[in-house]
């Protein structure tokens, strides 16, 4: 569904990505790993259209993504989360979730100003939908809580819920379990599995926690200094000598896990 071909990105003198190519197939869970500065988040930011690549192509179901503006990417079914939380701190949990439903709102400015029935109904329906998801995850007590007051792991989960309300076909998760406790990580892994298996959502994720990645992903793409040095199933990656040398061999994974 997602195809990245010879993608390059240069920031001044720094070649952040150098002819990166990989694909994500429908209903896969793919992990994008690599040491700090390898260019993982840059790949996400290019898919989100925050940057203009210096070379290469990104296509989604055959459509050239580089033609889109960043706010149009979600309309195609690509939704992301952020490494350092993309939640809006001064909104309640419910309001944050309803931003995830943004593209389902169609009431004109005038209908909103005048409080016309269409605008009211839309607001009510979207609110009900967001509350349904909260109840589904037994978190309805948090609906009116301000986001900044919640524990980090909970915030991460809420950001993921918000992404789900945007009805993704492809979900991009940037370090979904960074800073979480072991129990929270296990719960998150289960949740991502269910999203993928029960709801048929394809997942591309960046994560430093090797156990998490190896235990969850169908396939892994390894970046180092902006290049793809390996891709394959977790077992293959664990035995790939170049990967071990570039990444695992430095003890990075044990230090960070």
């Amino acid at each position, binding site marked *: 569904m997602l195809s990245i071909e010879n993608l390059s990105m240069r920031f001044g003198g720094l070649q952040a990505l150098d002819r990166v190519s990989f694909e994500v197939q429908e209903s896969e869970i793919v992990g994008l790993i690599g040491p700090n500065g390898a260019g993982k988040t840059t790949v996400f930011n290019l898919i989100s259209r925050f940057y203009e690549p210096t070379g290469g192509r990104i296509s989604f179901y055959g459509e050239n993504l580089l033609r889109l503006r960043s*706010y149009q990417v979600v309309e195609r079914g690509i939704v992301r989360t952020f490494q350092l939380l*993309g939640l809006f701190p001064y909104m309640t949990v419910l309001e944050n979730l309803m*931003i995830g439903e943004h593209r389902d709102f169609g009431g004109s400015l005038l209908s909103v100003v005048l409080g016309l029935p269409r605008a009211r109904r839309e607001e009510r329906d979207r609110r009900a939908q967001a509350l349904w998801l909260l109840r589904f995850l037994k978190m309805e007590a948090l609906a009116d809580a301000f986001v900044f007051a919640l524990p980090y792991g909970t915030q991460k989960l809420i950001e993921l819920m918000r992404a789900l309300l945007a009805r993704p076909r492809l979900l991009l998760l940037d370090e979904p379990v960074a800073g979480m406790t072991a129990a929270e990580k296990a719960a998150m892994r289960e949740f991502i599995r269910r999203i993928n298996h029960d709801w048929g959502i394809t997942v591309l994720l960046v994560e430093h926690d090797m156990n998490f990645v190896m235990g969850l992903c169908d396939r892994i793409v390894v970046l180092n200094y902006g290049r793809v040095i390996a891709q394959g199933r977790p077992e293959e990656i664990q035995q790939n000598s170049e990967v071990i040398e570039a990444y695992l061999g430095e003890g990075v994974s044990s230090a960070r896990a």
Partner: protein
Amino acid sequence: MPRQIWLALIVLTLIVLPFGLKGYTIYILSIAGANILAAVGLNLLMGYAGQVSIGQAAFLAIGGYTSALLMTELGLAFWLAFPLAGVLTSLTGLILFIPALRLSAIYLAIATLGFGAAVQQLIPLPYWSAILGGHQGIKVPRPQIGSFVFDTDLELYYLTLVIVLVLLALSWNVARSYIGRAFIALRDKPAAAEALGINPTRYKAYAFLVSAFLTGIAGALQAHLVGHISPGEFGLGKSIEIFAMVILGGIGSLPGSVLGAVFLTFLPHWLEQAKLLYTFLYGAALVLVIIFMPYGVWGFFLRLYYRFPAMQKLFPKGA
């Protein structure tokens, strides 16, 4: 008590409020009403959408002159000229929206400052003084609906009350809608907002449209209350006054803007005795509020609310 009862109580209080007040105080209350609309207009733009403007007086002037001229020059009825003045002012808001697409907060503030100065300088130019009245300004007709002319302070007060309440309700509709949430999202985390499908161009345009509409209506209302309009009223001082109302009341809170506007409208009259010290006391009040109530008067109330359970019983959540 549920929210509806509180609202009904407040409206009832506002209806009986003028009885026993001097005509002049009633008049100042009406002026406060116009200022409320200007403050709410700026708060939606600045507090919600994060677009700083210190040129709002220009929209007041455009709204005031437009409503007056539509009546005197084109012979439109008040009930038509007045809202139309808001709509036309709203379109001039798009003039500021264009630099807002490119400029970040502080640079946009300078651009709006320039806009405010330009409009104030353009009005008294001789080319159109036959219509705009130059520095002297023009007389503004009294509001009239059918054959009923709103002439006394009391009649104007009730007209103002209705206008302000209706527009506050409409502003509240915007603030509590997906559009209001999109404003806040773009203000706090533009990248995350865009990644969820919020088009920054569209919502900045909405913010300027809504803000200029409210401010235009505020200007028209003030012009009809005063009965006269001249360019001298719309200097940088006026823009900063509106700015101060928003900051004082609490940025990003509509009830705060109402309080801030009423307070700053009456403050000069309370301080009248201390003529020479007026500017000093005015400045000191602002500094004190910013130091001790960083989230404005309304934010201060909210904090009290969360600190004292008794208040939470009296005003249940969401009220």
